């Protein structure tokens, strides 16, 4: 039997609200299928499953606030029978009794067992100790919660359902809190170092203008596309900036997945992953970027997009700043920032010329890399942007990043 647990969808997430099931018992599922919608402090996320099987039981029903790691569904493995699953479940139930007592409370001596509990005076609320504690934690009055347990007892699930239902979320405040928690962790744990370099963009902007000139508006590329591609290709050569710092060591990412910082109109930001940017053509990358930004703003991202990014790239140039000094999103180990493209005096071949220039910056984790390699990584991004025609396909001189 497969236990499907509520996944963590970001560094700051410790609980989520199950909003909707996209499957029902008996449905076959395979890796990558969206099975549920879960609300986090940032967004409602389509949660994917990473195993193949058949849905056996939906353990929790929406709407319900649940801690990360809660088993929310059980699935039959391929070839497994429901009988076998039941056997296994009984074994698990014996090994791990549920926290909330589900058995009826023993009757006090002398009471008449014939009287059904449903007729008990309404003033007397049956409530499990765990549910009472949870209600107190949540600031709820157990007397107003409808019980669904034995003899109408209020269970911990009832308390959490009641907590999930009425209070509409202050999304902006929650997102601010979530960003604050992740960034506080980053500043507390990650020994950041910062580097920046100016990159001339005359070649790439001219190349882009020529390429866009004859294309309809629906097929044009934004400057962000060659910038992202250059970062992705440079990461193949400097893989120590693409991955995660976990359990005291650096773990390289399986693929170059760029988290793209997207500001949301209602405030806050989200940095979902563009996958395998190093092998995408520029047109494919543009389509993927348009789609990702649209879905981020419509709050329809997938769970893998929330967790797969191996580095973050942020572009604050449209807002007019020249230099980004980024805060790394844990457990990632680096962030690349681009500022505004400005026309600046630039010396080339002994001549002062006016040149569009961008300041690219790197914030990186000193536990995973040193400034020397960081400098080479930024220089590689600059070098790639001087040959924009080579960005469209992965250069064969680079080793593949796949593991």
């Amino acid at each position: 039997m497969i236990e499907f647990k509520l996944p963590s969808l970001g560094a700051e997430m410790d609980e989520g609200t199950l909003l909707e099931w996209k499957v029902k018992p008996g449905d076959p599922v395979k890796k990558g299928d969206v099975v549920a919608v879960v609300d986090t402090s940032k967004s409602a996320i389509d949660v994917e499953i990473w195993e193949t099987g058949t849905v056996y039981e939906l353990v929790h029903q929406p709407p319900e606030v649940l801690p990360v790691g809660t088993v929310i569904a059980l699935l039959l493995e391929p070839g497994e029978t429901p009988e076998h699953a039941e056997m296994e479940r009984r074994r698990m139930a014996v090994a791990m009794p549920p926290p909330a007592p589900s058995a009826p409370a023993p009757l006090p001596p002398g009471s008449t067992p014939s009287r059904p509990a449903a007729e008990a005076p309404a003033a007397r609320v049956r409530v499990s100790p765990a549910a009472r504690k949870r209600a107190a934690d949540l600031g709820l009055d157990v007397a107003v919660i409808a019980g669904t347990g034995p003899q109408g007892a209020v269970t911990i699930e009832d308390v959490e359902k009641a907590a999930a239902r009425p209070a509409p979320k202050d999304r902006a405040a929650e997102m601010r809190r979530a960003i604050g928690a992740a960034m506080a962790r980053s500043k507390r744990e990650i020994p950041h170092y910062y580097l920046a370099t100016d990159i001339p963009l005359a070649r790439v902007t001219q190349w882009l203008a020529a390429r866009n000139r004859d294309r309809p508006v629906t097929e044009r590329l934004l400057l962000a596309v060659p910038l992202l591609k250059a970062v992705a290709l440079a990461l193949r050569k400097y893989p120590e900036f693409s991955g995660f710092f976990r359990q005291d060591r650096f773990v390289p990412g399986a693929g170059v997945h760029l988290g793209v910082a997207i500001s949301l109109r209602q405030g806050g930001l989200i940095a979902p992953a563009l996958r395998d940017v190093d092998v995408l053509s520029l047109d494919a990358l543009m389509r993927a970027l348009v789609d990702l930004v649209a879905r981020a703003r419509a709050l329809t991202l997938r769970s893998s997009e929330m967790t797969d990014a191996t580095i973050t790239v942020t572009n604050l140039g449209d807002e007019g700043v020249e230099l980004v000094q980024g805060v790394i999103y844990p457990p990632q180990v680096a962030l690349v920032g681009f500022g505004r493209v400005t026309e600046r005096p630039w010396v080339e071949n002994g001549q002062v010329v006016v040149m569009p220039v961008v300041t690219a910056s790197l914030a990186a984790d000193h536990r995973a890399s040193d400034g020397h390699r960081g400098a080479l990584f930024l220089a590689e991004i600059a070098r790639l942007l001087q040959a924009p025609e080579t960005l469209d396909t992965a250069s064969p001189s680079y080793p593949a990043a796949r593991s």
Partner: protein
Amino acid sequence: MNDHDLREVVIATLCRIAPEVAPGELRSDAPLRDQVDLDSMDWLNFLVGLHGRLGVDIPEADYRKLVTLDDVVAYLAARRGGTPSMPAP
């Protein structure tokens, strides 16, 4: 379609991109990007929206002509048929 109708289409397209915009508060003669928070992706989506609604494909070289709402409306009016546009009622 007269200038008034064109203006309505432009504003409706803009509001799809930036729902926080209050159409009544937009100044026609002040730079759009000073009044509305539009990044380069929003701007591209705005032009894609205009293309879809009006059939006018605005080349990149003309972006710099489109500073104010008045500029956008005048540009679209000129590109759609080239006849002098009707004054707004």
